[in-house]
């Protein structure tokens, strides 16, 4: 008797298995779709598309409101949300585009703009420069203002006249004198690194103008396009 039950059951299972719709593997397609929008450029495109879709919605509803259509549905809030979302996506698209720009041509920028120059000369024992290179200081100040991610190192030193401790303090004041001028030209204090090295090694108690100086060295470790897009 049992075999008469098992046989139809087996046939039924076989039929059901045959009827089951085989599921197509879509993982590779999903990966390709994801790849099409990967990276900064792909993300910029995606955000731009989203922004356009949102704007379309907002404009559509604007048309309704102007013609007094769909009066029974509060569409205005939806339109406002869509317009705000469009603006957000536009900003994100712009940011991604800037990152892409940095990615593709950042290495060409500002390499030649790094500066290593003596900008201030001091008399023995003085922290007030008798001669400064104002043009260089102005240029570095403006450049630092335009590139918030950039930094500059101010290195100041003294000759061997006087006591080492006094000369250490003197070199710090000399560096500060240059920093004040850089800040006045647009640099942010956070961008400036002070390096007061005190006495430059040499024969004791020997005046040397070459060592009574302050040097500015700019560096630009991370280049970034559109730093003001936030």
């Amino acid at each position, binding site marked *: 008797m049992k075999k008469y039950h098992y046989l139809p059951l087996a046939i039924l299972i076989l039929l059901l298995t045959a009827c089951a719709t085989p599921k197509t593997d879509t993982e590779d397609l999903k990966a390709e779709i994801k790849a099409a929008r990967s990276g900064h450029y792909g993300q910029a495109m995606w955000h731009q598309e989203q922004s356009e879709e949102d704007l379309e919605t907002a404009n559509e509803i604007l048309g309704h409101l102007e013609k007094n259509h769909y009066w029974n549905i509060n*569409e205005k809030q939806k339109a406002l949300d869509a317009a705000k979302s469009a603006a957000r996506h536009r900003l994100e698209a712009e940011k991604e585009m800037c990152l892409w720009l940095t990615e593709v041509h950042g290495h060409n920028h500002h390499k030649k703009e790094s500066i290593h120059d003596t900008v201030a000369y001091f008399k023995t024992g003085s922290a007030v420069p008798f001669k400064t290179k104002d043009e260089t200081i102005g240029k570095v100040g403006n450049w630092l203002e335009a590139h918030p991610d950039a930094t500059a190192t101010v290195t100041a030193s003294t000759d061997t006249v006087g006591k080492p401790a006094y000369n250490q303090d003197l070199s710090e004041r000399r560096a500060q004198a240059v920093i004040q001028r850089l800040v006045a030209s647009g640099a942010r204090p956070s961008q400036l690194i002070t390096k007061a090295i005190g006495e430059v090694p040499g024969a004791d108690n020997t005046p040397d103008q070459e060592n009574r100086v302050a040097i500015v060295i700019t560096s630009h470790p991370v280049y970034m396009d559109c730093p003001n897009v936030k």
Partner: protein
Amino acid sequence: MSKNKILAACILTCALMMTSTAKAESYFIDKLSQGIANIAFGFIEIPKNVINITSDQNIFLGLTWGVIRGIVHGVSRTLVGGVEVITSPVPSSEFASPAYVWNRFSEDSRYFGLHYPGYWTSYGPLDDGE
């Protein structure tokens, strides 16, 4: 004045209005077609109200309040359709909005700018406002 003369005066007036400009002709055709459509399909207000109220609230309200509202709207649209046919030679703004019952299916109908209470406030399943 005999009835015939009054009728003749009406027909003449209508004819003059109809033939005045091409724009007036367009008005006439639009209004006439809207009137005929509203008379013929005014009853579609019933499923429209049922569907939209069910979607906005629930099936119970859809089948009760929706049917009542749909009947009132259906009668209104049919009557307005008749008025549109009668006054079709006279240019005017649309009497019913939406002009045809199948237009903007999620929009609650209004006649002469007036609406009935108890309307739905969201898009229905047959029209998402696009």
